């Protein structure tokens, strides 16, 4: 059987991974600059050439690709109440692998429309109201969206009683009706919407992103890269057929501009004395921290963690930390070349991982009621999760990956943050997770075997 080529068109790099499916082996990986402005195939050819330097000439049988080039899948989502349908619409979009620029609640204003017009999203998700619930808001927002200057696909996934009306208001535009993201109060139903978003991406969006030239080479499946990543995490956790997965896990992907956190876990309360608040949590959850990243968003890390903390972790003076952060913010392609900068990058990575995972995980509040001590949980309780998988260039190429990754774990000084207590750290050394997500669509067994083999075990064991 001929080897399979898996391609990830990233915003800066095009990554190629060659796989021998029969023997469940990675033949090689390589990366070259993404060339979306000219012809995206140039970058791909460069990557393959670099790849073949180590593997020798390869005759590929099949080729699959995912992409986050040209801004990825740009979305905005609208709902009614911020912590209810607006939150549900956000979960749906993020889980579909989108880059959610903004989530709007209540009625869209003229100012909002101007913003949306400028941002120029690829897809808009329109929700609001439980089934049989509020109709005013979604109908109003449909009317506002009908005024958009370009035909942006709109996925309608709100109160089912007015889905047809919304579609009529948006007549002449590309619309899709899906099941309500929150059919009953607090109940999350985001899979149908996610499936629809992925289909639109495949059938429409890739054409606009200069990926069509590459399409000729592909055997199929083009998905947003975060979607491939999520697929890989799910497979690694759940297993396939007779082959067991590793169980519940948390994944961290630290990048230059954003940090993605994934969890494949139930997250239910540890005991019966706990009252849960807020929207139901998706089993497979993705959050994106747009203000946490090693270069473009380095300022956000400092704002979240504080210069005092960064100085302590790095072992540098506070004024030095401020000076270095200023520098990094303006030199986004900088790679550390001094001991001082290595320390700085280490501290930034630690703080980024801690902040992003803390925001992803749920929290537990102690409340003394007249009937005694009670716990109120919001979000997912990830304390019993056994594995933390780390990926992303900034993490896997760092010198102290395991130490950095430990910042994803439970911290006694902030016991309210429900992060994994005793988890093994797994490192995606060869940066293959997204590729394995792609491969799993055709060869789930091989993808699972390769992940289990390649993703090294580190950290403390129980």
């Amino acid at each position: 059987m001929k080897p399979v080529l898996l391609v990830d068109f990233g915003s800066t790099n095009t990554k190629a991974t060659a796989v021998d499916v029969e023997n469940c082996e990675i033949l090689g990986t390589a990366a070259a600059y993404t060339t979306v402005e000219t012809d995206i195939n140039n970058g791909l050819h460069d990557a393959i050439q670099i790849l073949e330097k180590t593997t020798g000439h390869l005759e590929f049988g099949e080729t699959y690709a995912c992409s986050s080039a040209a801004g990825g899948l740009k979305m905005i989502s609208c709902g009614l109440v911020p912590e209810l349908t607006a939150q549900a619409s956000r979960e749906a979009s993020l889980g579909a692998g989108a880059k959610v620029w903004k989530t709007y609640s209540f009625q869209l204003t003229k100012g909002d429309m101007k913003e949306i017009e400028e941002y120029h999203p690829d897809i808009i998700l329109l929700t609001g109201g439980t089934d049989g619930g509020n109709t005013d808001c979604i109908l109003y927002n449909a009317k506002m969206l009908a005024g958009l200057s370009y035909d942006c696909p709109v996925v309608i996934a709100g109160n089912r009683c007015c889905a047809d009306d919304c579609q009529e208001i948006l007549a002449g535009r590309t619309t899709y009706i899906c099941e309500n993201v929150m059919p009953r109060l607090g109940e999350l139903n985001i899979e149908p919407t996610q499936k629809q978003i992925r289909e639109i991406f495949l059938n429409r969006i890739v054409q606009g992103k200069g990926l069509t030239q590459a399409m000729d080479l592909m055997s199929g499946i083009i998905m947003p890269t975060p979607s491939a990543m999520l697929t890989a995490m799910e497979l690694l956790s759940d297993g396939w057929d007779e082959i067991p997965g590793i169980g519940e896990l948390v994944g961290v992907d630290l990048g230059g501009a954003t940090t993605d956190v994934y969890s494949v876990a139930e997250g239910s309360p540890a005991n019966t004395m706990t009252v849960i608040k807020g929207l139901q949590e998706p089993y497979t959850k993705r959050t994106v921290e747009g203000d946490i990243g090693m270069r473009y968003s380095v300022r956000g890390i400092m704002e979240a963690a504080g210069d005092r903390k960064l100085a302590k972790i790095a072992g540098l003076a506070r004024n030095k930390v401020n000076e270095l952060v200023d520098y990094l913010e303006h030199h986004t392609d900088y790679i550390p070349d001094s001991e001082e900068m290595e320390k700085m990058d280490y501290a930034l990575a630690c703080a980024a991982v801690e902040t992003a995972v803390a925001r992803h995980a749920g929290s537990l509040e102690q409340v003394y009621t007249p009937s005694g001590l009670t716990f109120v949980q919001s979000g997912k309780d990830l304390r019993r999760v056994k594995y933390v998988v780390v990926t992303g260039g900034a993490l896997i190429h760092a010198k102290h990956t395991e130490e950095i990754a430990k910042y994803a774990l439970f911290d006694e000084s902030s016991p309210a943050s429900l992060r994994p207590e005793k988890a093994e750290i797994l490192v995606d050394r060869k940066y293959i997770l997204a590729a394995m997500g792609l491969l799993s669509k055709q060869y789930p067994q091989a993808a699972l075997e390769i992940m289990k083999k390649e993703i090294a075990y580190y950290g403390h064991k129980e």
Partner: protein
Amino acid sequence: MDKKKLVIGVIGADVHAVGISILEHAFTGAGFEVINLGVMVSQEEYISAAIETNADGIMVSSLYGHGELDCRGLRDKCDEAGLKGILLYVGGNIVVGKQPFDEVERRFKAMGFDRVFGPGTAPETTIAALYEDLGIPEEDQQAAE
């Protein structure tokens, strides 16, 4: 005719979980669509739920004596959130100790509650009041179980 919708829950730091389930059962049996928020419900949660589901009424339960503090400002917040004129009921052991009920009723009505029910009220009493206040015609009223 569409069912009328009620958001119900136990307010504040109150964890009495049994009564609210009984009320959910009784209101559902009486022909209402019930959105039960459970225990330890904040004012904001009632309001968010009522907006999203387009509810006709908010039924606040309190059993631990601190209801008076917990309920303050709920009507104002409803007005602020665009739920002007939504039906607001409160019931249970809503004040500290034993106080004359007409006094208690007056205070809660001044806070903006449409109806106030004291300890030991049977669900049927509340249901009859709901039928009346929501103008549900007799043929749509369902015999209490």
